[in-house]
């Protein structure tokens, strides 16, 4: 039950005001700038160009390239995180030996600064001084240029994302698994359902709502990736591993092309919103079926 009391305003206004300021100012600012041609270096007076920035961006192959790279990284990384995270969470939930220790240690990567992770990845993937290539050569594979060849570089970024964020999936799914009722499983065991059947018949459907939420959060967050890429490849080779945020950073902070950057930010926002809505729309029937 909620109650009514004038003191409620005192409780909510500080947070409301701060979030309002920080959300509406940038929104107003970048939305209005996105319709103008505005450069700081070299300084050009602002000029209204309507959708000029947007059409220019949509015709720029670099934008499509960057959007595609980001999408690949986000989708592949989140899929892997979900599959691995779910398996590990299942194992921990069923009290694998040493479960207590695993639980503590599996959490660690999530709390390591992404910048530091990227630096460590650079060391490990280094072609001459890194351990990974030594291992590869020991097994008879060629010495691979992990960070300087597009495919390997994207693969490397994805592995770093998986390393860092699978713990989040484990944490959330494990918490979800622990709330599942025991009696359903007891009934299934009486019916001699195999573990495989139990998983697809009981666990997976019952975990669907939280899975949807976890994947959604991870997908949105993955689209914002910048620090790892910034340190590991700097977007290179060329622009082949550049992500949306990095592209916006380059245009805005290096070239001070404000109108263009703002338009890019809004296209970015639209891309994320569309992906989020499509994702939820696809999954809605399944969610309702299992309610």
């Amino acid at each position, binding site marked *: 039950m909620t109650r009514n009391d004038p003191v409620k305003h005192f409780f909510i206004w500080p*947070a409301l005001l701060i979030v309002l300021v920080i959300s509406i*100012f940038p929104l107003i600012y970048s939305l209005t700038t996105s319709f103008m041609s505005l450069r700081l270096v070299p300084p050009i007076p602002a000029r209204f160009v309507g959708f000029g920035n947007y059409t220019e961006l949509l015709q720029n192959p670099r934008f499509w390239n960057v959007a595609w790279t980001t999408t690949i990284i986000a989708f592949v990384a989140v899929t892997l995180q979900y599959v691995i995270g779910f398996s590990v969470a299942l194992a921990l939930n069923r009290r694998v030996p040493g479960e207590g220790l695993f639980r503590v240690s599996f*959490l660690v990567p*999530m709390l*390591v600064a992404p910048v530091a992770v990227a630096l*460590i990845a650079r060391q490990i993937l280094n072609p001459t001084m890194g351990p990974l290539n*030594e291992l590869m050569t020991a097994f008879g594979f060629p010495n691979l240029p992990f960070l300087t060849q597009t495919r390997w570089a994207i693969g490397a970024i994805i592995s770093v994302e998986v390393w860092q964020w699978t713990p989040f999936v484990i944490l959330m799914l494990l918490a979800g698994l622990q709330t599942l009722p025991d009696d359903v499983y007891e009934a299934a065991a009486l019916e001699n359902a195999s573990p495989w059947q139990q998983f697809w018949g009981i666990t997976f459907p019952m975990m669907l709502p939280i899975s949807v939420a976890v994947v959604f959060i991870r997908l949105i967050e993955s689209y914002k990736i910048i620090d790892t890429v910034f340190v590991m490849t700097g977007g290179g080779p060329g622009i082949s591993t550049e992500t949306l945020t990095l592209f916006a950073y380059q245009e*805005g902070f290096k070239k001070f092309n404000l109108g263009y950057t703002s338009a890019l*930010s809004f296209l970015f926002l639209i891309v994320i919103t569309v992906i989020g809505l499509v994702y939820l729309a696809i999954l809605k029937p399944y969610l309702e079926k299992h309610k």
Partner: protein
Amino acid sequence: MSVRNFKGSGRWWALAGCLLWLAFTFFPLYWVAITSFKSPLGVVGGPTYIPFVDFDPTLTAWSELLSGARGQFYNTFIASTIIGLSASVLATFIGSMAAYALVRFTFEVKLLSGVIFVVVAFGGYLLGRHVLGYGQAISLIYAFIAALGLAIGSSRIKLPGPVLGNDDIVFWFVSQRMFPPIVAAFALFLMYTEMGKMGFKLVDTYTGLTFAYVAFSLPIVIWLMRDFFAALPVEVEEAAMVDNVPSWRIFFGIVLPMSKPGLIATFMITLAFVWNEFLFALFLTSSKWQTLPILVAGQNSQRGDEWWSISAAALVAIIPMVVMAGILSRLMRSGLLLGAIK
């Protein structure tokens, strides 16, 4: 034996899988730890794995780092600590108040008032900027005040249209996290620059960065704390209300102490977020209030392949959070974070 435990050989397969994942998780951390004790020659000569067997550990990198020969490490560490702690304390405090209000009090906002706010804010800005010819910051401030005033005023009178409840307000808060931070970071940087021209220096200051972090942590704090508060038994508060204890004393005297574990967990999650944050720090600081992630990222371009010193620098950023992970998992085992996901 519970139905949940493994039967037969499945247990060992699961263990093997977990060990494999453990190795994948810990090898990079092990690697950075040993690299920070290697000598320059030990790094360049190719990979080595076990201290004292493969290579002779030295303290060169650490003594260089701690003696300050590698840039202003102490300053950055202190700046990171101060900003991290104060932003997380503030965000947890303000966010808890809002979360509590959203759990226990009734809020009703007319959708139309929200629309009025956005429209007036936009219109006011455009009017001030392009018709009246004010500067950007001034027009933004006037537009914001006008929009807020009109929105509050309009909520007093009877308006048609749908009414938003507590859940919608929570959703609005949480949805702020969907916003790509680059949009906000860049706009904030320009706004701060404008404010600087008016005499309020915000770029590369404590206030500027802390404010940004508080604002961006609030959604997650409200989301987490709302579940903690909702799980508290309401009877205690009702008993206090019967005794005519004012609401603010119920909150500070009863509710906050009761939800101490939740507060600590939320505080630590926020701290980890602020400590590791990169994009805002990149835009909003330049030298004095630079945080650790920026310094660590800078090592890369400045020092090329001097992995020994880069590793030591990275470890300084990593270790405090790893210690915190230990504490957090302790809390987690007591089932604390369970409520946070429902």
